[in-house]
């Protein structure tokens, strides 16, 4: 087990460095990339704190939908395969709701707030 700082604490520190001093002193040609990198560090920081619980919820939701337990990547691949070729509106409707819930958890990490707009 590592001593402190935690992963999240370190990522926050790296993000502060990128978004602050590094961005200010980067040549114009590099600034966009530095901003993107700073944003990615923010995603990783949120993933380190929210990711494990989100993955647990995704697994439970997928297992309930497909009818058996398994690894989250396997369940997700199975569902994708079923939806790709399936023709069951009732199942698709249930899947839609599950996928919305999963997307909310994904967005809490990747782009907080994106799910506040539910229109087209």
């Amino acid at each position: 087990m590592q001593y402190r700082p935690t992963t999240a604490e370190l990522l926050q520190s790296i993000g502060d460095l990128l978004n602050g001093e590094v961005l200010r002193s980067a040549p114009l040609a590099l600034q966009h990339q530095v901003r993107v990198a700073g944003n990615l560090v923010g995603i990783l920081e949120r993933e380190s704190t929210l990711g494990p619980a989100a993955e647990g919820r995704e697994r439970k939701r997928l297992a309930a939908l497909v009818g058996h337990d398994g690894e989250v990547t396997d369940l997700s691949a199975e569902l994708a395969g079923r939806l790709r070729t399936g023709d069951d509106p009732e199942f698709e409707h249930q899947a839609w709701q599950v996928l919305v819930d999963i997307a909310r958890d994904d967005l809490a990490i990747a782009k907080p707030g994106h799910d506040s707009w539910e229109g087209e």
Partner: protein
Amino acid sequence: MSSTEPDLAEGRTGELVSGLEAFLSAEWGRPVRVSNPTSSSAGARRNNVLFDADDGRERLGLVATIMPNSQIQLNPMGAEAAMRDLARKAGVPVPRLYATCLDSSYVGGPFFVSERVEGETVPRRVLRLVHERGIGELVAGQLGGALGRLHAIDPGLAPADLIDPGPGNPAEVALQWAGDAFGQLLEPRPALALGLRWLERELPGELPERSVIHGDVRNGNLIVGADGLRALLDWEGSKRHGDPMEDLAWASLRMWRFRYDDQEIGGFAGRAPFVSGYQSSGGAFDEERFHWWKVLGTLRWALGLAGQTAAHLDGRFVSIVMAASGRRVPELEWDLLMLIRPRCPAEPG
């Protein structure tokens, strides 16, 4: 996509100025002096350089749009130039083209020289201007009007070498692409599978008439001033035989609203003034097709982002920007799910 173009480096500026001077002097048959070159942020794939040209008689504000040699050109530059002229003659606002140079030796790539139209091009700045001036409905209406005029052009007049998706239904061609791209995902995504299945099931039938389309109409490819829409830019993906609703739908996606989510058309305004402008210049709006192309466009963007990450991971295009694209896929999945929301509630149990 946001701009990743580097600003003009010190050494490059001199070469660029002398290259532009040499080309324009030969083209116009008199000595031309070039000054004040600045790199513009408009256009992510190409480098736009604003400059002044003085031929001893007058001083013109111009823009050079330079294709890096490494870049894959969608339309041949000659076809793009001819398409721009055709659209301009039909009343679509397009900056006047002064010259096309296919010789890479002048500035390091083939380029266009166009009239410099003043105004905002960066989406967030465009939106700030539009909302400060209260001209959102005007711009949406003007954009609809411009597209109506574009789509009224006889495809038979389009340049012979313009991209042509071939005979048949453009929606089927786009769906085929999406199916192939879905098959190349590094990990299958159920939300994208659901979107693809929806598109297959709702595939619109053959079009009565296909149109010349721009292919990338959106906030980001526009020049807007205090008086409204001034130009529609970036014709490199224009097509001879497209579905006109593809252009309208692409302009309406959430990606181009930049937080003005309830303003469907580029963050400018809702759908009504846009459609009304389109219809008043001769366009026929088809709501079902429009919706289908919104779903297709959203899925296409998600698959495009996934493709960028694949290109980064397998070494074809290593870049932190390409890497980051994959983490944007959930945004598009969300938008896609909102667009295909089931219409009636599921039976309980």
